[in-house]
């Protein structure tokens, strides 16, 4: 079994970010990057399946050379090898990322499962997994909270409004991970040392046969959320209701 896991680096979610003065993007000077938390869940699930089914786990990330630590991080957790597809962050949108991952899927040839985070915590788009399944014409199960693989199929439990939905998908399939799927393991020191010796292949878009790099989404402008005003302490429930009715006019 071969499992392809997509891993994206995101600006440290706990860091305070600044926008560029013209609002065209986020100022990435001296920011720290981390692996997208949902991608860590995807990696962990792939490693759990590897332990159960003796699978090969391949981490793929798209971006400039500084996405390599993201791949190494997955290798340190226990993945077998990595693939970096050369690109620039600003030259990507969800659609192109999905087409690139579809190219990697075909380039690898015998992938059984593609695992992704359900979304990245920077753009929060939640599109790549679904688009990838469409481009590859594969079954998909998004927001997985449990994955079981047996024979040639995967049984995936999804958290939906009002309960749990269980799907059975023939392999190969695309699965996106929710936070509750698992608790990602920490890289061990032996794992970190071994990761340096694991191969990372570098591919260009041309290697994957991708010539159309036009983006379908244009970021027009980013703005800071409006500053919050200080709250008002009220003395009693009656006063609170009075303010909600007469001042905030929400009741």
């Amino acid at each position, binding site marked *: 079994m071969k499992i392809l896991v997509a891993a994206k680096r995101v600006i440290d979610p706990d860091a305070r970010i600044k926008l560029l003065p013209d609002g065209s993007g986020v100022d990435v000077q001296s920011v720290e990057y981390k692996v997208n938390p949902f991608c860590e869940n995807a990696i962990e699930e792939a490693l759990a399946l590897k332990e159960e089914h003796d699978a090969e786990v391949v981490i793929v990330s798209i971006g400039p050379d500084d996405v390599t630590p993201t791949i190494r991080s997955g290798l*340190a957790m226990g993945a077998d090898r990595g693939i970096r597809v050369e690109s620039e962050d600003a030259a990507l949108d969800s659609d192109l990322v999905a087409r690139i991952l579809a190219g990697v899927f075909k380039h690898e040839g015998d992938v059984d499962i593609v695992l992704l985070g359900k979304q990245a915590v920077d753009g929060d788009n939640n599109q790549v997994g679904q688009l990838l399944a469409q481009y590859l014409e594969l079954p998909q199960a998004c927001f997985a909270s449990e994955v079981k693989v047996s024979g040639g199929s995967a049984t995936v439990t999804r958290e939906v409004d009002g309960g749990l939905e269980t799907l059975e998908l023939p392999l190969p399939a695309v699965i996106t991970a929710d936070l509750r799927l698992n608790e990602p*393991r*920490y*890289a*061990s*020191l*032996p794992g*970190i040392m071994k990761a*340096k010796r694991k191969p990372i292949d570098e591919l260009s878009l041309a290697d994957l046969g991708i010539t159309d790099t036009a983006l379908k989404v244009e970021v027009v402008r980013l703005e800071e959320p409006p500053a919050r005003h200080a709250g008002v302490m009220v003395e009693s429930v009656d006063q609170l209701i009075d303010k909600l009715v007469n001042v905030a006019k929400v009741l």
Partner: protein
Amino acid sequence: MRFRFTEDQTLFRDAAREMLARHCGPEVVRAAYEQGAGAPDAWRHLAEQGISGMLLPEAQGGLGLGMCELILILEETGFAALSEPVVETVAVAGPLLEECGATALLARWAPAIAGGRARVGLGLDGQPYVEGADRADLLLMERAGELHALTPERALLTAQASVDGARRLFTVQWAEGTGTRVAQGEMAARALARARLRATLGTAAQLIGLGARCVELAVEYAKVRTQFGRPIGAFQAVQHKLVDAFAALAMARPAVYRAAWSLDRGDPEVDLHVSMAKAQASDAATLCTRSALQCHGAIGYTTEYDLHLYMKRAWALSRAFGDSDHHRARIARQILGD
């Protein structure tokens, strides 16, 4: 000399930092302070990450690494105020048994230490109390230049008060015998001297981390606490106080790293380097706590506020394994003679 850590060493630190941030947050430190709870989850993860066995020989299930690899992680355990005997168990016990030639004892205890199933209490001469003796699985005690090993059931433990509620200090009364003696003579003296250096340096590294935590808390507070219509961090008096603390840490940190390098390579001046590290780390951490407390005002002193927890640990460790005066006197003796 090249004062730069390798990529592996910084990745080890990052892995430990991430784990400690998740499993040894202020709520865990508070539980240790108020209830003596330790930090069992973090302790388990230290073992799973391979940190507990870093200094143990590979033949015994360890990683065979040195203080240069461990020192950054110890700094992180200080930043997190980890209330577990990581210095005694990880930095000291394995190398001490190995250097004493205690092959059988090492073979018996190394797997348990590497697996996080054993904690070690350390009773070196000059230290009146053994931290965590009640929870230790093995006590390594120095007496009259000899190393003895015993389990806590063979000793009478008497609890002692500590300025830091999370530190469980005990006097340990025990009877020596052939069953307890591990090493004596020249070999024991050399191994015990190096154990003292490791314990002192490990504590110095933790102090650097604690100082950094106190400065970080104070900086965050200075950004949000307003007075006279602006954040107190906008006032030069507050800025200078925090900058002085930060600068003291920046000066002490290389001394700690240098001493780790000297220990690993058997530098003939390692005693001097470890004393320089501990003296500077103790002073820097103390300055950081004072500056942080000043910036916070009265709230910083209340036990309900997190700064208190880190400050008390720094005060306790600044005196453990020799305070600044003790190590300055050692430095003076080494450069001036007796």
